[in-house]
């Protein structure tokens, strides 16, 4: 059975933030919440790298482990989803998540942040597939439509990959074999001279 995963090819990400915008638009995410973010390391310095981050749909998800109301569940595709009807907005999942994926619509203390919101891998939620209730709470369900998350589908540099973990890992492996990696990559010395090595 396919296991859904995201993979961001950091050598290709140009920090355009189109994945962030596409996600917000596709899922009509409210103000204050970014289900996906682009993180830049060594910003403005040689060797700068950007990576697009969202919920990584962990195999043994720490968010699910700490949830006091046990509102998380994992689908057959291994997508980690949650029920907003059960969520009490305590914030434990936010502290547990190593990627900072869980977000809240309001700033506040325990219980006043509103229901947690996170990337659903464009797979909706517990409501009926493609129903208005599902869209209103969790956003679109592209997986049920036979598509993949929009953030990956519209990535202009094909940096962000999504889908069956085995397939996208193979795609990435082929890329690395072909182009080399970091300072061994084709064109690296032309762009960064000999002084920068990664």
């Amino acid at each position, binding site marked *: 059975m*396919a296991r859904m995963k995201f993979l961001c090819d950091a050598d290709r990400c140009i920090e355009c933030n189109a994945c962030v915008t596409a996600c917000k638009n596709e899922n009509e995410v409210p103000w204050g919440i970014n289900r996906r973010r682009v993180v830049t390391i060594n910003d403005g310095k040689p060797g700068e790298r950007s990576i697009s981050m969202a919920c990584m749909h962990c195999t043994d998800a720490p968010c699910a482990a700490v949830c006091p109301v046990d509102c998380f*569940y994992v689908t057959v*595709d291994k997508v980690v989803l949650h029920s907003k009807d059960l969520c009490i907005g305590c914030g434990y999942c936010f502290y547990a998540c190593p990627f900072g994926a869980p977000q809240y619509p309001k700033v506040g203390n325990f219980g006043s942040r509103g229901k947690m919101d996170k990337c659903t891998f464009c797979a909706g939620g517990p409501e009926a597939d493609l129903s208005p209730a599902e869209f209103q709470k969790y956003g679109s369900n592209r997986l*049920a439509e036979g598509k*993949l998350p929009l953030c990956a589908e519209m990535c202009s540099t094909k940096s962000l990959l999504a889908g069956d973990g085995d397939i*996208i890992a193979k795609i990435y492996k082929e890329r690395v074999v072909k182009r080399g990696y970091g300072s061994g990559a084709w064109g690296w010395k032309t762009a960064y001279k000999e002084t920068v090595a990664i």
Partner: protein
Amino acid sequence: MSEMKNKQSLDRRGFLKVASLGSAAAAASVAPGIVTPAQAYNPGKEETKGRYRETDHVKAFYRTNSY
């Protein structure tokens, strides 16, 4: 006068005793109904079913990303 006062205080004590006994009895009778074992959220098969399909759309994504 003092006898009357005594009687009154006894009555009050008696009332408190009866009231406390009554509330304890009420709690005892209700408690088995309230206490239920905690249950984890158990999503149904419909919620956890696999939605991913390798459609032509998805195959096109894999094909166009493999370079």
